[in-house]
């Protein structure tokens, strides 16, 4: 598969007829999985952390980003860095804690010590090395690129990648909205990590997929919310179709105003007060935009922010049929105890392995993965709304935008497209 991989064999994008379909091989073939690992996850900006996770110099978290173990640390100089969590000596994992505060990191194997800005600060008996050994060149390696926007830090393993600012394209407007919602900054609250027995792309396709809400999440919208006295009683789009927008470079936003949830029920007064404060701060129009919310913002290749649940999720490929999901609550720092509790409760109602919605999502993905065995060469159809002037939330534009960028990243002879911006919409 190394030579001659042509995505157009597997992705049919017929805009004239309004037919978009992808081969199910793309979810089951291990060699295609390896191509993706090489050509997507080594060349895209991947979410790593948020600046609010580092309140003091020396604060660190360890996590895998794109499958690679990193130490994300705010050094003594105040700079947040991504360091490969592997000793320069023999690759031992240097920092074994999930999070904490440290002046430096000591590898337990041979006692090499690194400062929290990454330099090799000590090693036993350095005189045993010849002049060829230069300690100044033996610090923990930085990731090739690490940049942030509004406090969201992303890493890229390609030193030549376009700046994050360009890569994010039109998502920045929505990052602004969801960040400005937090009047005194963001408080990151870690969630539970879990895996789904499905290809990572199925997870992305599902995240912003409003089309399945009424069916797959009927127990949430009708049974659960019914038990709280407020079942869904009107169409999700309130009779006025809300749009899905392609934001460039494979990103998208599904402008779903989802207020059939416990938080919307329980926090009316607090939300009104918040609107009033925002109006005073930045005017009625901006306040309305912020309070209306962003819906679901999908970041190519593998992240999603859901604003009603204030949760950011990433989906990392582990194997062709196994994806690891990580998630963080991004709550307003200014919330009092009561409203914070309501928001956290809202999360638990829907998201997470024991919520009243996510398990059904994950069951659907695992079930599709099992269904691929029926005929691996069959097509998956993603044509909904393709010829509409403006795609709706229940259309599949967000998935088509993803696949178009996917094709640009993985095709042989298209390496230049990694460094070019792209529309990815239905009418490009």
């Amino acid at each position, binding site marked *: 598969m190394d030579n001659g991989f042509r995505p157009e064999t597997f992705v049919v994008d017929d805009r004239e007829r309004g037919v978009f379909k992808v081969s199910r091989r793309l979810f089951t073939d291990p060699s295609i999985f390896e191509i993706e690992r090489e050509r997507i996850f080594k060349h895209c900006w991947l979410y790593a952390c948020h600046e609010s996770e580092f309140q003091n110099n020396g604060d660190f978290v360890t996590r895998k980003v794109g499958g690679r173990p990193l130490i994300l640390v705010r050094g003594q100089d105040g700079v947040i860095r991504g360091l490969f969590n592997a000793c320069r000596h023999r690759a031992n994992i240097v920092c074994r804690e999930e999070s904490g505060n440290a002046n430096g990191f000591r590898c337990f194997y041979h006692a090499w010590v690194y400062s929290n800005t990454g330099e090799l600060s000590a090693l036993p008996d350095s005189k045993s090395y010849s002049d060829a050994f230069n300690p100044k060149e033996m610090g923990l390696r930085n990731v090739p690129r690490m940049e942030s926007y509004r406090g969201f830090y992303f890493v890229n393993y390609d030193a030549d990648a376009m700046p994050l600012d360009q890569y994010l394209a039109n998502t920045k407007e929505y990052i602004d909205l969801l960040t400005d919602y937090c009047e005194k900054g963001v408080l990151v609250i870690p969630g539970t990590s879990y895996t789904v027995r499905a290809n990572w792309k199925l997870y992305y396709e599902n995240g912003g997929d409003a089309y399945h809400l009424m069916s797959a999440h*009927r127990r949430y919208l009708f*049974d659960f919310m019914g038990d709280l006295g407020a079942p869904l009683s009107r169409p999700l789009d309130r009779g006025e179709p809300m749009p899905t927008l392609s934001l460039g470079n494979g990103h998208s936003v599904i402008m779903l105003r989802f207020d059939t949830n416990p938080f919307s029920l329980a926090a009316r007064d607090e939300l009104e007060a918040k609107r009033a404060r925002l109006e005073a701060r930045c005017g009625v129009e901006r306040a309305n935009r912020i309070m209306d919310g962003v819906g679901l913002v999908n970041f190519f290749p593998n992240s999603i922010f859901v604003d009603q649940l204030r949760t950011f999720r990433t989906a990392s490929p582990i194997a062709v049929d196994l994806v690891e999901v990580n998630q963080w609550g991004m709550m307003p720092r200014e919330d009092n105890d009561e409203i914070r509790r309501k928001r956290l409760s809202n999360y*638990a109602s829907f998201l*997470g392995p*024991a919520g009243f919605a996510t398990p059904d999502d*994950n069951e*659907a993905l695992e079930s599709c993965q099992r269904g691929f065995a029926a005929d691996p060469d069959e097509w998956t159809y993603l044509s909904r709304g393709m010829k509409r002037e403006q795609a709706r939330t229940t259309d599949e534009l967000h998935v088509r935008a993803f696949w178009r960028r996917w094709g640009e990243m993985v095709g042989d002879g298209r390496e230049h497209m990694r460094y070019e911006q792209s529309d990815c919409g239905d009418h490009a």
Partner: protein
Amino acid sequence: MEITPAMQLEVERFLYNEAHLLDTWQLEQWLDLYTEDGVYQIPSTSNPDGEPENSLMLVADDMTWLRSRVKQLLGRSAFAELPHSRTRHLVTNVEILEVGDTNIKVAANFLDVHVQHENVDTFTGCYRYELVRSDGKLKIRSRRAVLDMHSLRPSGKLGFIV
């Protein structure tokens, strides 16, 4: 108050009966084990000491939510558990931690085996209960299941009662 062998036996039998109700999907009878102000919690694996005020709990049910959870699981829309998976709740190391005037604090270990499709998945952790007596019978005022795993894998679905 002293912990007597009779009390130890009573608590163990209570927990074994509870596990039996869960494994036979007699969830309404399982609900009856709770007091009116009962609480069922599962903290996040990121924060096993977390509380609903400060962490992304996996489960933080009061009785309204818990009744809804049971109703959903016995209905036709909880697709993650339709048809019902087979479970086996193995409960061991039952320890009475404290006996108060009106309540008993209990800890136990669990290994839940969850069988669905061709998968056999296990989840392990410890339970923390606060039991009270009502009309001579033990009832659950608080049930907390703390998972040992950092990351739920390979199965990330906790659609069943842990």
